[in-house]
C-alpha cells in the first residue's frame, strides 16, 4: 500500500559528473483506449490512462518529459486515437509518443502520424541521445497484400497465438536510418531507445518479439551505455544482452499474462489465455501502473508506480553489469505469489 509518490532524493545523487545533467522522465504505456459505439468507450481503460496522467502531473521533482509507449488505441480507429490524444494532452509536460501495433494496423499509422508526427526519430536531452523506433512493422506481403479489409488486418495482428499473425520487425529502412542517425554520436554518449515491442526475442506467439532484434542490437553495439525501453508486454521485465540493458514498462490498461480472476461475462476484454499469479479482481487498476525514470550515469533506473500495490525499482547494478530489482532480486526477498483470494 505504501506508495512512494515523490522521487527519493537519494536516487538522483551520484549522477553525471555535472549534477545539472541529472534528470527524470515519466513513462506511460499501453492504454488500449477502446471504442464501443457513439461516445462510449471502455470505462476501465479510460480510467487507467486518466489516472496515470493525473498522477504524473503531481510528480515532484517534475519530469523533464513524458514518453507514451504505444498502443494508445485498441483497434486504431480515429475515435480511439482522438480520445486517447485528448487524455494525453492533459499532461503538463512535453510528450513523445511511440507507435504500437494497435495504433497502426488499421490505416498503417496515417491518422496517428497526423496527431503525433513521425513514427521514428531521435532527440538529444542533457547529454543523452534518445531514439524512438517503430518496431511493430512486418513483411510487406502480410501488410499490403494479404487481407481483404483494413479492419481484418487490424484484428489479425491484435490476436494472440494467432497463426495468421506475423512477427514484428524494425525493417531495413529504419535500420539504415538508425545507423546513419547514430553515426554522429560519440561512443560514450548514453543511448536510450524506445520501441513498442521488445528489441529482443521472448515469445513469438504474442509478439513479445522483434524479428530483426539482433540486427538492431548490432547497430547499437559500439556504444558504452545503451538502454532499450519497451511496452507491449504489460509487465515488468528486465534483461541485459551485451552492452544493452532492457526494461519493459507496465500497461495502464491490463496486465499480461492474464489473471484467471478477470474471467467474467460482458467484460469487453480479449479471451484469457494464460493465468497470472496475482491480481485483485476488485481493483480494476491492480497489476497495472506507470513509471518514472531516473537517468543517472547514463543508465535508466526504472521506478514502477504500481496502483494499489508495492512499488518497485529496477536499476542498473554496476557490480553485476545488469539491471536488477533493487529490493526483490534475491529469491528469498520475493513476495510469494498469491494463488487464492
Amino acid at each position, binding site marked *: 500500500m*505504501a506508495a512512494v509518490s515523490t522521487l527519493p532524493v537519494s536516487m538522483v545523487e551520484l549522477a553525471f559528473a555535472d549534477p545539472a545533467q541529472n534528470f527524470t522522465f515519466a513513462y506511460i504505456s499501453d492504454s488500449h483506449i477502446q471504442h464501443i459505439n457513439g461516445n462510449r468507450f471502455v470505462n476501465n481503460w479510460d480510467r487507467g490512462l486518466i489516472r496515470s496522467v493525473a498522477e504524473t502531473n503531481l510528480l515532484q521533482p517534475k519530469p523533464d518529459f513524458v514518453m507514451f509507449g504505444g498502443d494508445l488505441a485498441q483497434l486504431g480507429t480515429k475515435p480511439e486515437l482522438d480520445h486517447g490524444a485528448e487524455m494525453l494532452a492533459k499532461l503538463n509536460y512535453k510528450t513523445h509518443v511511440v507507435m504500437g501495433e494497435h495504433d497502426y494496423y488499421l490505416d498503417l499509422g496515417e491518422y496517428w502520424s497526423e496527431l503525433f508526427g513521425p513514427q521514428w526519430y531521435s532527440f538529444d536531452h542533457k547529454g543523452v541521445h534518445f531514439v524512438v523506433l517503430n518496431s511493430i512493422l512486418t513483411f510487406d506481403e502480410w501488410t499490403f497484400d494479404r487481407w481483404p479489409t483494413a479492419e481484418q488486418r487490424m484484428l489479425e495482428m491484435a490476436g494472440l497465438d494467432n497463426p495468421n499473425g506475423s512477427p514484428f520487425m524494425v525493417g531495413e529502412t529504419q535500420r539504415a536510418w538508425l545507423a546513419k542517425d547514430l553515426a554522429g554520436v560519440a561512443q560514450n554518449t548514453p543511448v536510450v531507445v524506445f520501441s513498442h515491442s521488445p528489441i529482443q526475442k521472448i515469445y513469438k506467439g504474442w509478439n513479445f518479439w522483434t524479428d530483426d532484434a539482433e540486427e538492431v542490437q548490432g547497430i547499437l553495439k559500439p556504444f558504452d551505455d545503451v538502454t532499450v525501453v519497451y511496452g507491449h508486454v504489460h509487465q515488468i521485465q528486465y534483461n541485459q544482452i551485451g552492452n544493452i540493458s532492457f526494461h519493459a514498462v507496465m500497461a495502464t490498461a491490463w496486465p499480461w499474462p492474464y489473471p484467471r480472476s478477470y474471467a467474467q461475462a460482458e467484460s469487453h476484454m480479449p479471451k484469457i489465455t494464460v493465468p497470472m499469479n496475482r491480481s485483485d479482481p476488485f481493483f480494476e487498476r491492480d497489476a497495472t501502473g506507470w513509471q518514472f525514470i531516473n537517468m543517472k550515469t547514463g543508465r535508466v533506473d526504472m521506478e514502477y508506480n504500481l*496502483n494499489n500495490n508495492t512499488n518497485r525499482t529496477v536499476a542498473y547494478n554496476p557490480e553485476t553489469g545488469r539491471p536488477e530489482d533493487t529490493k526483490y532480486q534475491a529469491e528469498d526477498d520475493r513476495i510469494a505469489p498469491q494463488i487464492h483470494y
Partner: protein
Amino acid sequence: MRKTVFVVLLGAGLLAAAGVLSDAGQEQSTPLGLPPVPIPENNPQTPEKIALGEKLYMETRFSTTGEVGCFTCHDPEKAFTDSPLKTSEGINKLTGTRNSPTVINSAYMTKQFWDGRSPDLEDQALHPFINPVEHGLKNHDPILKIVRKDPEYKKAFQEVFGKTGKEITMREVTLAIASFERTIVSGDSPFDRYYFGGEEDALTEQQKRGFDLYLNEGRCVSCHVIEQTQALFTDNRFHNIGVGINNIQNDVPKLAGEFLEADRTLSEVDVEVLTDPKTSELGRFAISHGFDDLGAFKTPTLRNVAVTAPYMHDGSIETLEDVMLHYMNGGVTEAGDPVNDFLSGGIRPLDIEVEQIEDLVAFMEALTSPEFEPAADAADGEK
C-alpha cells in the same frame, strides 16, 4: 438526564455483552457477529479503569468553553455520533470538516480517524482536545491540572494507576479513555441472528434480497467485509470513492504539492485537515503521501448505519438511498458529473436497478443492534 440514559444503556447492553466486567468468559459473551475485542497488552481492561475512562469521556471541563466533551460529537444517545449534523460542532459551534465517525466498534479498527492518521484509540484521544475547532485547548496542561487536583480524579487515578500529582500524564488519561471506548461494541443485530445465529426469520424477505445484492451485484462486501464467523463491515483500508475530492479537483496539484514539500508533524496535519475544507479532501494522502491514497478515506463500519445519517466522511449524502445512487453511478453523486481522476479501481458503475436500492437499504436497516433500536425508531419518526 443524558448521563442516566447512558449508564442504563451501557449497564443493560454493552458492558455486560462485551464481558469486560469479568475476567472470565469474554469470548462467550462477545456480541453475536463480533470477534473478541483486541485489548493491547499494555492497557488491560479493569472495571475501575473503564469507569474512569467514562468519566473522562463525559467531562466538559477539558475544553475552553467548559461545554465540549468527547460525548459532544460521539453521543451515546445517537449511536456515538452527532447525527444529524453534517460535520461536527466543537467549541462555540465551530464546525470541523468531517462527519463524526461512531465510536461503536472502533476498538476493532486498525487505524483511527477517517484518514487513519492515528494508530490506536490511545493516540486518537490526544488530538481533539487541542484542535482549535474541537475542544480548543492550546495544549494538554489544563486537563492535567484538573485531573491532578480534582478529588474524584485524584482518587480514581490513584486507584487505577497508583499515580498522583505529576506522575499523572496524558498517557494515563488516554489509557483510561481508550479502555472505556473498548467497551463500546455492538453486534446482535437481526443480520447477526440470521447469518451467524441461524434464525431464518430474523430478516424479512426484502432484507434477504438486499443481502444477496450486498454480496453480489452491489459489490458492497468487497470493502464492508463479512467473514465466516464475524462481520466488522470494514476492510480497515482507505478508498477514493469519489466523495469530496470532486470538489477540489483543480486544486489537487497545488494542495498535494504543498503536502509533498512540507514535512508536517501529525499535530499540524490534524489541525489542517479539520480546519481547511480543501485540505481535508486530500484524505489519507495527507498522511501517507501515496498516490493511491489521494481522496481516500477509511471504510466505516455499517453497523447501526441506519441511525447515523448523514453519510460519508464529509456528511455530504443525507440518505442511504442517495448513497446507493452514488455507488450505482460509479462514484458520482449526480449522474453525469465528472468521475474523479484518482477514483479507486474498485469503484465502477453497478449493474443494479433503481428498484433494488430499497432492498439494499432494508438490509442495512437490519444491521442495527438492539441497544440502538430506540434511536432507529426516532429516526423513523422524523422521516
